[in-house]
């Protein structure tokens, strides 16, 4: 009989707490982004395909399905670190042994050499190159993600990837890098 009471007591306790938990789960549910979206926001969105996937979103999906997190050279180590934090795994160096802090570049078309073949326009994943057939093309610097994809298709090799110029706004207080002169 004692056993019976104990069972009832424990059972009802379990039931009550179960109900409380269930209620809490419904009532206080935290809406979180699907993991793919979260990964996608971390990725630099250069759409360069260097990870082996056709764009950042597919790579985000691949990571969500268990792919390595260190395949994004444009993101550098910072991105790997963030992904590691998000996915709860160890951060590791970039798969291709690329620089930890990639130098940001933008494409630049040497316009007098451009033959207007539109190949780069077709290659650009973010429509950052404008031009028409047999007309000179140019890069919208602000939209260029520096993905390198336009360099390959150019038949006359007139596209350079130039490092982004430092401005007063982007200057990072490297005082030691400023060339000093004599007092004269």
């Amino acid at each position, binding site marked *: 009989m004692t056993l019976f009471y104990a069972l009832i007591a424990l059972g009802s306790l379990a039931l009550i707490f179960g109900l409380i938990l269930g209620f809490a789960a419904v009532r206080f549910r935290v809406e979180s982004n699907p993991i793919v979206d979260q990964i996608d*926001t971390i990725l630099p*969105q250069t759409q360069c395909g*260097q990870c082996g996937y056709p*764009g950042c979103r597919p790579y985000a999906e691949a990571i969500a399905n268990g792919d390595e997190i260190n395949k994004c050279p444009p993101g550098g180590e910072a991105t790997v670190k963030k992904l590691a934090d998000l996915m709860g795994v160890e951060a590791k160096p970039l798969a291709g042994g690329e620089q930890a802090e990639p130098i940001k570049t933008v494409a630049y078309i040497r316009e007098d050499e451009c033959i207007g073949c539109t190949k780069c326009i077709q290659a650009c994943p973010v429509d950052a190159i404008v031009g028409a057939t047999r007309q000179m093309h140019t890069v919208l610097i602000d939209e260029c993600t520096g993905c390198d994809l336009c360099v390959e298709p150019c038949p006359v090799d007139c596209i350079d990837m130039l490092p982004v110029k430092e401005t*007063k706004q982007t*200057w*990072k*207080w490297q005082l030691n890098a400023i060339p000093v*002169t004599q*007092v004269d």
Partner: protein
Amino acid sequence: MEKLIDQIKQGKVWPFPGGIHPPGQKQQSTTQAIARLPLPDKLVVSLKQHIGANGKLIVEKGQQVLKGQALTKPSGNWSVPVHAPTSGLISDICPMPSAHPSALPELSVIIEPDGEDNWCELNPVTDAKALSHDELVDVIHQSGIAGMGGAGFPTYVKADTRKAIEFLIVNAVECEPYITADDMLMREHADGIVAGIELMQQLLSPQLTIIGIEDNKPDAIAAMKQAAQHNDSIIVQTVPTIYPSGGEKQLIKLLTGKEVPSGSIPADIGMLVQNVGTLFAVNQAVYEGKPLIERVVTVTGNTIHKQGNVWALLGTEIKHLLDCQGFSPAPQQRVVMGGPMMGFTLPTVRIGVVKTTNCILAPDHQELAEPGDEKACIRCSACADACPASLLPQQLQWFAKSKEYDKLNEHNLFDCIECGACAYVCPSEIPLVQYYRVAKAEIKEQQAEQIKAERAKERFEARKERLEREQEERQNRHKRKPAAKSDDEKQKVADALARVKAKSDDTDSKSAVAAAIARAKAKKQGAELEPDNSEVAKERAARKEQARKYKEQKALEQGEESVDKDDKKSAVAAAIARAKAKKAAQATESQAEAEEAAPVDDKKAAVAAAIARAKAKKAAQAAESQTVAEADSAPVDDKKAAVAAAIARAKAKKAAQAAENQTEAKEDSAPVDDKKAAVAAAIARAKAKKAAQAAENQTEAEEDSAPVDDKKAAVAAAIARAKAKKAAQAAENQTEAEEDSAPVDDKKAAVAAAIARAKAKKAAKEQAQSDESSEQLDDSSDTDDSKPQVDEPESSEDKKKAAVARAIARAKAKKLQQEGNDKS
């Protein structure tokens, strides 16, 4: 509100937390009146001396300007003009190191004074009351006035605020040690400043105007009280001397007890702060019509012989200021623009005075010791006690060092005003402010990148959508056409081929072949399908793999030189393939016919051949487009068309030659290994293409010279011809090599070729990056010829032509490289 005003009128101040008491060091520069300097030899007037956009340049090099003449006119948001500080000649307009901590170059107008100091026509206003609000704002705007306290915020923007202003606060605190520019200005020009204040009152109609002055400036307080006596709405408030009470937000708290909410501006809570220097400039602009062309600068520090204040024309080089006041630099001399707490060191003294330059400090090492080594933080929180914004500097420092930017935001890093009080008191001499600045810059960059990434994503997705839509439309259109069927079939066959290839256990050739086919496919579909990233990615991967394979191959090659059995077999296979290809080519031009005519097992080879043809056609098109481009650029006669025809002919000839090669192997009709055949065909194709290109280049080069009357083009053409010749020679060599290498293991050859191509491209790229002369590795004699081509100005047509020639030359160099590599 009434109560607050009463409290203020009774002299109540509301101390802010923190603050420090660094030694004032002000006496030495207040002993003498503000001096006037002789005209400097040159003035470097930076176009941007304020927060906001540059004005639009309205003068040009070599122009004579008068004193006060505008050099730029406002355009865009928050742009204010700059004016010529004296009359003279504009000797240059070029980027010069700017008065900014980074000293990054800023476009500057360099004026050589003529010594006359002739004013342009001035339009002083006698009765400001008669001016409308907008007119007055416009005078301030056109006079180029920007906040002279340090930040350089355009004054007209503040004066034109639409918000109701309760308190106009005049910042005469000057809390930084050493600086006495405002102090001296108030002593000497209190009336002018009060007149400026009254103009601002007219614009903003505040309930009360409070002039805040630190109690270490009794003379200035007396002068201002005297000057403001007649105006009841102006109060001179004496505040205790504590750094940084001159910070805008701190001063507001100090004088009114209110705090500006984080992320807001003072106007949001009905406050507006103006520096005394700015108000004096407003007075000058309105009542004398003089734009802002000079300001008071304190030149001080123990290495200066005559420490004091001077009227400096904007653009006066710091060197001139130092020289005029006497300067004996110490080793490791620091020259600081601004005060010792927030000023920045200059990397050169050839920087011009700007609207925000209030002090030039050249200290020796006794008065301001060089910073010692950074030691460990002991969390003494002396910094937190000194922080006027109640931040936790030592926490911020930990987070900044470990780059935890979220934590930094959580601890309100962006409320830091970088006053330097924390670093001043730190016993471990940690450069706290420097850490914060770097962290701020990095956070800002990250935010900018995040925004950019989002935009890139949007654009990428929009593009994807568009391409899908277009493809769908195209497919719909094609479905209606019966002809499309064959296209589809063709693709299916190609797909199947690719699949077979992929399946084959011949791992060496697999990737290369697959890639080649994929490329071919993509090219064929180029007109209809978008080249998606996976394609390029695949190619990249393939190339990487090839590079690796090549290494392995090389190692292997050394060992298996004597394997003749394989060679024979492959030679036979290649011959068969050629035969097949030939047969297919002979059959017909239309795909359907080819399919019918060819024996069933030959189908695949036929398809391959068709692909090859398509490619050749494409190449021809490309060549055409090039010629057409040239045709566009030059007024054309029949010659051009003839040339184009010639090219086409040349190509046809080449194709014929290729066909001849193939006939050699015609006789063989044994049952064929399809795989091998396809490989062989692919190689044959690649070679044919190369040859065709070479031929095409040659003809083009010739054609270039034909219509030319210009020397330069001739030179270019000559170079191109020389190249072409070389290329032709190389091509000959190559055909030999080709024949030689024919029996060689085809797989190997294909891989090697691919690698060679990759290598050549890289080499070419490197060359292209260096200048034209170094690009031509082989013919050093050409270098001299090519130079003038770059230097001399050319007409646009010639330019284009030359450009084309250059492009061709580069392509050729690339080719040469390739051949070199092929041979090797």
